């Protein structure tokens, strides 16, 4: 299915482009906008973006593949990101990640984002989320959770409807 930009997205992208004297600069923000609407960035979306910014698709593809936050595949409704870097690791991030994987039936040793079979959750063990003082920390979508105990983790999962 080819990518269809909604009028709202089109308007948002036009607004973003107006922030920069050079169109290309908007590419990262445009990709964010697309991901926000669709959850991921398809090949067609890349081509749409490139056309919009007067670029070659490879220019957009280059940055899409660079940034781990940008998704090339659909992800679960709830994207759980658990921080794994040192301070959180000292605070029990590995155990927390393990806990999530176990709870959601995923492989804790597998790398990269994993989505549950029902497509509800995507769990990813990510690098520093910059809140090391309240380790371990995690995000669900855009929501941030600090000092996550296993109990709190269970509540968070339960809260995802």
């Amino acid at each position, binding site marked *: 299915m080819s990518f269809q930009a909604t009028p709202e997205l089109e308007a948002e992208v036009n607004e973003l482009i107006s*922030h*920069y*004297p*050079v169109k*290309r*600069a*908007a*590419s*990262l*923000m445009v*990709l*964010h906008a697309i991901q926000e609407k669709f959850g991921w960035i398809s090949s067609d979306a890349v081509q749409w973006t490139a056309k919009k*910014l007067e*670029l070659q698709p490879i*220019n957009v593809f*280059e*940055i899409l593949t*660079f*940034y*781990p*936050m*940008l998704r090339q595949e659909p992800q679960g409704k709830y994207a759980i*990101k658990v921080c*794994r*870097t*040192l*301070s959180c*690791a*000292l*605070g029990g991030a590995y155990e927390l990640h393990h806990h999530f994987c176990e709870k959601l039936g995923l492989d804790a040793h597998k*790398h*990269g*984002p994993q989505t549950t079979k029902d497509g509800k959750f995507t769990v*990813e*063990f*990510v*690098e*520093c*989320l*910059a*809140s*090391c*003082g*309240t*380790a371990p920390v995690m*995000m669900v979508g*855009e929501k*941030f959770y600090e000092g996550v105990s296993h109990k709190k983790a269970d509540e968070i999962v339960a809260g995802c409807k």
Partner: protein
Amino acid sequence: MAQEYKLILKHADEAGYTPDIECYLRHGGYDTLKKAFAFQTKTLAEGKTQTPQEQLRQEVMTSGLRGRGGAGFSCGLKWSFVDRKSGKPIYLICNADESEPGTFKDRQIIHKDPHQLIEGMIISCFANDVKLAYIYIRGEMPEGAKILNAALKEARAKGFLGKNILGSGFDCEIHVHRGAGAYICGEETGLIESLEGKRPYPRIKPPYFPAVLGLWMCPTIVNNVETLCNVKHIVAMGGAEFAKLGTPNNTGTRIVSLSGHVKKPGYYEIEVGKATLRELIEDSKFGGGLRDGRKLKAIIPGGSSSKVLKAGEKFKLKKKDAEGKDILVETDMLDLPYDFDSLAQAGTMSGSSAIIVMDDSVDIVGALANLSEFYAHESCGQCTPCREGSLWMNKTLHRLTHGEGRAQDADYLVKIADNIPGGRTICAFGEACSWPVQSFLAKFKDDFVAKGKADEERRAKETSEPKKLEVAHH
């Protein structure tokens, strides 16, 4: 006795303080901007005239403010390098890509007091004739980006941003640009490339110094969030007054991010150099000491890339004696004053002022393996030594932590790490990824050798070769 000294976070943590503009205005917000606009051209003794902009820049120079991002470079000097004769527009970028593991100070400012940053930015823009500025915020802070966008909207509505700000005739616009999860975007030229919509590959210097050939090949200033907030306070209190805070050459205050094995992890704003590491970790006003029954093993004093300090290490610190002569005083690592210069003398750095404390429960090999995985994941892959070396170190450490180590791996790791830093790479990431390995191995070599030996002995019993383990990234 060391005290918290709240300058930037003065109001942020007060009960009832909200990030909206009304609250900010109630606390004297944007008064400093008005003060900056009120500067008049003045004639100096030699008959030269000094524009308000030049005076503002002079104040920042006088204040001795050093960049809070990590390198600790003088902000006034950085501004003085800007090519103002090129005729090209000058850009200012606020580096809010706070990605150094252990650091979470900018998050507090952005979430709790965004207008302070915006005011600091507008003043800095005014001082440098910048008409267009960006806040590059890391992608993992979507809330921060929303708060900033809302704050910018409010500021615009109140006439602090946009055309002819407060009737001064000065136009300025600020936009928020979001990253998407790349540590390398914290490097200023990498950030510029990312903002231009390219892969964030740091640029070669020479010739691409941001002050001359920065964003879209125009002169560009890149400053950290905390640095730009400080500009506001410098203008408010005067550069000379600001310079009285802290210690000579280490002026002002710093927000220290304290994490790891302390009772009270968190952020604490102190006058630079007015507290020692011991105070920060043990004092009840700060970290409150280690968990009960635990002993200190190591401290990473300035964000994950700074060199580790081992408990009990002693350093020769240069001090002035009663007669003002330089003398060397033997100082325990915990008694190092937390400032730029003392830590530099101890062979490490205060970096982004993030202290990670590790007690004796920590497996030091595992801790380094954790860090090396971060660096292997974050290397942009532009320069050969860092691209290949960061992953190589990670693979070796992965082996060591998964029972496939060798006794020789300790030396092996140092040799790999030695191939990366020291100007062999375009940006400082090469140093950042090899310093932890070099310092951990220099200070905890025995732990690594013991681990490797144990693995060797176990395998000898099983008579098997070391397995090749795959390491991969998210």
